């Protein structure tokens, strides 16, 4: 392997890396896709859902062959305050029209499929290899080092995930700060497919996705999620790492607590936990963006911080796929012109702008700072649940008017109204 020189070496066979490898191999370029897991996907986890658009533009009709779990027809957002909660459900059959708006997914099988597509297209897939460093010569990246092997290429794509050591080693990013990432944990809970459909009121193999804000994160910046797979449920929490750093709270115990809540327990009753996983989640968006390109190198997917969390909607995989595609287009052009200089690599930004990744990230630039407002996780869920509970509770012939109930909920929540107005404005701008 040491004597070969590839056009592109891609580090990490996740959605970003495999998409780039697939597109480059399709055009006949020499591509090496390196994965440290024994199989692609064996090191990867996420909450549970992929939006379809990005992949469908690269592999049209992907849903006919990809290992998918359920197409999501139902969205549920819940505020939790103790054992009380208020939820909003939105169901839209339009989301089931091919390619279907989004699917729940298990990464071990899905990532293996996508990497296999790249391999079928002609990329060389090398699994079980940890890339230790980038090779730099005269300020330009000329390949990677894995153990004692040095492998050369015109260009390297760092698609090595949220905790990307490669972008740090290439000098494209400083060490991550705790406030820039969340720690995500998930339990995979097996249940019969019928049971899941009944409990979530779903027809056949349609899916539901739920996000939770409030006591599930013990008032810390974060939230809970639930996704229905075919015969399992993905249940988990994401909490900002800076919160975990300062609050001596164990997220594994928090997840057990979440499971026991009355909103969750009946959904997973009699289920069997078959896996417990954890991963970092980029949370700071454009504010944590590394240098996306350098001489002979590009950064894609989670490694580039391409995740959008709006509280009621979370995107990551589709942005990873689209950024992998943009990286591939950059390299195809560079290959044609035989120019892998920094300037040539800077075209990556143009391709990211063309396929929407850049604009999506830019539009939500202010969301992370908005979400760093403790009131969102404690006072507001408490206010909303108290008020709703009051509205639905009859009270001994007092028959208090709604306005009175509202005032009482306001008082008991101790919400500062100028702060609420400020948060509402910030939220409007950020979301």
């Amino acid at each position, binding site marked *: 392997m040491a004597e070969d020189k590839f056009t592109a070496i891609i580090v990490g066979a996740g959605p970003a890396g495999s998409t780039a490898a697939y597109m480059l191999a399709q055009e006949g370029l020499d591509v090496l896709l390196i994965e440290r897991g024994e199989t692609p996907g064996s090191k990867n986890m996420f909450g549970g859902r992929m939006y379809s658009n990005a992949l469908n533009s690269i592999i049209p009709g992907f849903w006919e062959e990809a290992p998918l779990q359920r197409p999501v027809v139902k969205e549920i957002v819940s505020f939790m305050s103790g054992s009380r909660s208020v939820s909003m459900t939105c169901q839209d059959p339009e989301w089931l029209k091919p390619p279907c708006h989004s699917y729940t997914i298990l990464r071990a099988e899905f990532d293996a499929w996508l990497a296999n597509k790249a391999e079928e297209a002609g990329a060389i897939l090398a699994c079980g290899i940890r890339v*230790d460093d980038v090779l730099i010569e005269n300020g330009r990246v000329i390949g990677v080092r894995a153990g004692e092997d040095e492998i050369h290429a015109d260009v390297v794509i760092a698609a090595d995930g*949220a905790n990307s050591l490669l972008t740090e080693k290439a000098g494209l990013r400083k060490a991550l700060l705790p406030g820039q990432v969340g720690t995500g944990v998930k339990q995979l809970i097996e249940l019969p497919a019928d049971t899941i459909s009944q409990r979530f009121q779903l027809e056949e193999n349609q899916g539901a996705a739920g996000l939770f804000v409030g006591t599930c994160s013990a008032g810390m910046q974060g939230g809970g999620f639930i996704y229905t797979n075919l015969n*399992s449920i993905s249940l988990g929490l994401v909490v900002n*790492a800076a919160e*975990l*750093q300062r609050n*001596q709270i164990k997220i594994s115990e928090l997840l057990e607590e979440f499971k026991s809540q009355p909103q969750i327990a009946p959904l997973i*009753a009699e289920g069997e936990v*078959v896996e417990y996983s954890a991963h970092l989640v980029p949370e700071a968006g454009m504010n944590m963006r590394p240098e996306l390109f350098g001489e002979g190198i590009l950064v894609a997917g989670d490694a580039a911080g391409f995740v959008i969390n709006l509280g009621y909607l979370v995107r990551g995989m589709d942005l990873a796929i689209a950024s992998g595609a943009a990286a591939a287009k950059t390299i195809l052009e560079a290959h044609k012109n035989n120019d892998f200089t920094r300037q040539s690599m800077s075209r990556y930004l143009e391709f990211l702008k063309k396929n929407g990744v850049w604009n999506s990230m830019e539009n939500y630039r202010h969301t992370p700072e908005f979400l760093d407002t403790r009131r969102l996780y404690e006072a507001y869920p408490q206010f909303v649940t108290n008020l709703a509970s009051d509205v639905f509770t009859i009270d001994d012939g007092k028959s208090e008017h709604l306005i009175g109930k509202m005032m009482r909920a306001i008082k008991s929540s101790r919400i500062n109204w100028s702060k609420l107005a400020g948060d509402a404005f910030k939220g409007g701008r950020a979301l």
Partner: protein
Amino acid sequence: MKKLNLQELLAKNKFLVDDEENHITLNKEICTQCEAKPCIFACPAGVYSLKDGEIKFDKAGCLECGTCRVICSHPGAIDWQYPRGTFGVIYRYG
């Protein structure tokens, strides 16, 4: 559903433990000076623990998320790499 402790949770996972190489090494001199020791709480796999005032690290249950690396506020205390190829946690679902 019965509450599960971390050992029970981690026992659900498939691991290939590397007996020859540690992917995380601690500089105990630096760790001794750290009062807060947030790694003990923040690690989702609970691989850090305190024994006789000293931090112990058990790589066996490590989920390779990198939380400890990010939250450690003492530069040089945690030398963090991914496990060698194929070793470590093997997600069967993800």
